[in-house]
């Protein structure tokens, strides 16, 4: 039924919607790294150099206080708009940049806090303002400054940072690229704690993994926005999504625990769903609440589904949410077996996903 529509939604639409470098609309591109020294600044400024060589009007709006000789070499080839002195410190000179109105502005260190008293408290808000004024911004950020990951990174590195950028800002970017390198390579590293090299290597690997998963999540949400915007109902299955179906009487503990473990390993999304039933006894209501609490503590999303037919409700949800793994409980005690067994119906009707059946 969606066929015609599907075919009518070519990716050209996306291009039309977001023309690049036309100067009509701002554009945000972010380089994401897992530690300082992986080469974000270099990659970013190297792109600036190439663009300048292709005749584009590029300026550098902000750079890190300390730069490597390779980065300095690139900076020497580019126009830099110096930071502006304010009474309480330095900040990017956005007034000057907007007046100058280049096609592209390079901003290193998006997480920097501006000195107090300025309209924007942070550099990423400055960047946003530039984007809104029609400038293409290319910026960089290290995952330790991503608000939602700060605690996790701090647990690994022991280093507390006060600056941060919300994930929503990363997701608002038109393009995001990860700058990856094996842990042997970054120059500056974790703080001077007395960590053994192997342990430090491990910590860096975990940070690297965090950065890759974050980038994948951003790519996934952009892909979904795109599909949604164009009414395309398709699932690519690149992100694993688990749906656990529970009832008040289900042995939910094993199902939720297994889902939690698989979700952790696959960096999957996990939803626990319950299909509303007309009348629940007080006892069942309490049992259900207990199970939902268990689901919440496993950090699952909760979905309460409505529908006359339980299987329809589950499958509708699964299909519209790109579920890749569907978890259900199964009682062997049903005597009407095998003709009217809901599990059999699910086996028949659940296309394009794994159906994981738990004995009850």
């Amino acid at each position: 039924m969606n066929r015609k529509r599907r075919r009518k939604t070519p990716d050209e639409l996306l291009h039309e919607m977001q023309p690049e470098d036309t100067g009509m609309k701002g554009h945000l591109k972010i380089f994401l790294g897992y530690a300082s020294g992986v080469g974000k600044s270099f990659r970013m400024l190297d792109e600036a150099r190439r663009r300048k060589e292709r005749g584009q009007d590029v300026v550098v709006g902000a750079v890190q206080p300390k730069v490597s000789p390779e980065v300095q070499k690139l900076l020497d080839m580019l126009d830099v708009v110096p930071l502006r002195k304010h009474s309480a410190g330095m900040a990017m000179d956005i007034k000057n940049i907007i007046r100058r109105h280049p096609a592209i502005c390079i901003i290193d260190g998006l997480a920097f806090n501006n000195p107090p008293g300025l309209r924007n408290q942070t550099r990423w808000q400055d960047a946003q303002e530039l984007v809104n004024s029609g400038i293409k911004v290319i910026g960089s950020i290290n995952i330790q400054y991503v608000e939602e990951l700060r605690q996790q990174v701090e647990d690994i590195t022991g280093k507390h940072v006060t600056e941060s950028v919300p994930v929503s800002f990363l997701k608002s970017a038109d393009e995001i690229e990860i700058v990856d390198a094996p842990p042997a390579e970054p120059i500056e590293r974790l703080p001077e704690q007395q960590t053994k090299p192997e342990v430090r290597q491990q910590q860096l690997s975990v940070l690297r993994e965090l950065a890759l998963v974050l980038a994948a999540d951003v790519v996934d949400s952009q892909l979904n926005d795109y599909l949604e915007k164009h009414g395309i109902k398709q699932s690519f299955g690149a992100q694993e999504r688990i749906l656990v179906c529970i009832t008040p009487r289900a042995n939910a503990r094993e199902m939720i625990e297994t889902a939690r473990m698989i979700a952790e390993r696959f960096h999957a999304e996990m939803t626990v769903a319950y299909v509303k039933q007309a009348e629940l006894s007080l006892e069942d209501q309490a049992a259900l609440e207990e199970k939902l609490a268990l689901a919440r503590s496993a950090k699952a999303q909760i979905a309460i589904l409505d529908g006359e037919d339980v299987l329809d409700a589950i499958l509708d949800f699964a299909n519209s949410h790109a579920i890749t793994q569907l978890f259900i409980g199964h009682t062997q005690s049903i005597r009407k077996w095998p003709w009217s067994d809901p599990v059999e119906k699910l086996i028949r009707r659940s296309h394009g996903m794994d159906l994981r059946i738990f004995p009850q």
Partner: protein
Amino acid sequence: MVKTDRGKLKLYIGYAAGVGKTYKMLEDAQALINQGVDVVIGYFEPHGRQATIEKTAGLEIIPRAKVPYRGSVFEEMDTDAILARGPQLCLVDEFAHTNVPGSSRTKRWEDIEILQDAGIDVLTTMNIQHLESLNDQVRQITGIHVRETIPDWVAQQADEVVIIDLSPRALLHRLERGVIYDREKVERALQNFFRESTLAALRELALRETAHEIEHRVINDEADLAPKATGQKQIRNHKILLLVTADPNTAMLIRRAKRVGDFLEAECFAVAVNISGDLNRIMPQDREAIERHLNFARNMRIETQILEGNEAAQTLMDFAHENHITQIFLARTRRRSYSLFGQGGLLKNIVRLARDMQVVIVSERELTTE
């Protein structure tokens, strides 16, 4: 354990042609030469990309071997010549490449193993769609059935993996500027593989896979560093059993079960069931298919076995209990009807008998692309 003097392998992963894997590999090689490392190029695929070709400046290229096949002459990496030259480090493009028949080895990764055995470090490149266990997902995304694949365990043996990332937008610009393919090929590429949504999905797959590869190494290293540590990474020992049949979906089942097994650090077993006294009733082509599937499982490093029994479901369950299996993986058959006597019946019987283990029924991923 691996010999300490075995050459190390570094794998550059990308999600499509043109993201810059080879370029980055050559750039790293140039840096290593400056540090005094003895580097040669064992195999390089220029694809006519000027910037990449320029990066080979000053690098010694070992001439390719000529392999005659059916009246034509093909070129392959000359592994013997590289061994004779004996460099410290060798660059080899396209990890997943299949050699032309008549070569000493079937797969390029086998040649690379020979180089590593001789103590040579190797840098190599691969696109995510060539990873065996992702074959069905890649088909779901691209509509293309990739035939040149690398078994997951081979990729896992790389000492280092690094992803070469580029936004699909930037990749498409490269393509449109003619950096990646020549003009005629560009049109075709844009219509097929190089659609922005397809590229985004492949990229997501590559990012997640690289994250997994890194996690896999962290877990192994953690076990080496602190064998008794009971961190959150440790999980109950899972054991997966999968049922091999003649059904064409068995290959998909093997890939999926192996993939889940790898993520859960679980052992996998693949079994086929022969019904006693029923041998003649198996069609020859079915027996052939079962053999082929068992062979495929072994190539994926899954232990295989053929069981004899009176009844398939019960035989399978007995094996599962004896071997402390925690999860059984079955393929949903492609056949439309689920007759009680056909495979539908078998699935149901297994589900009914599995009172103390999970049963996972894997079904075909639907194609999202035309």
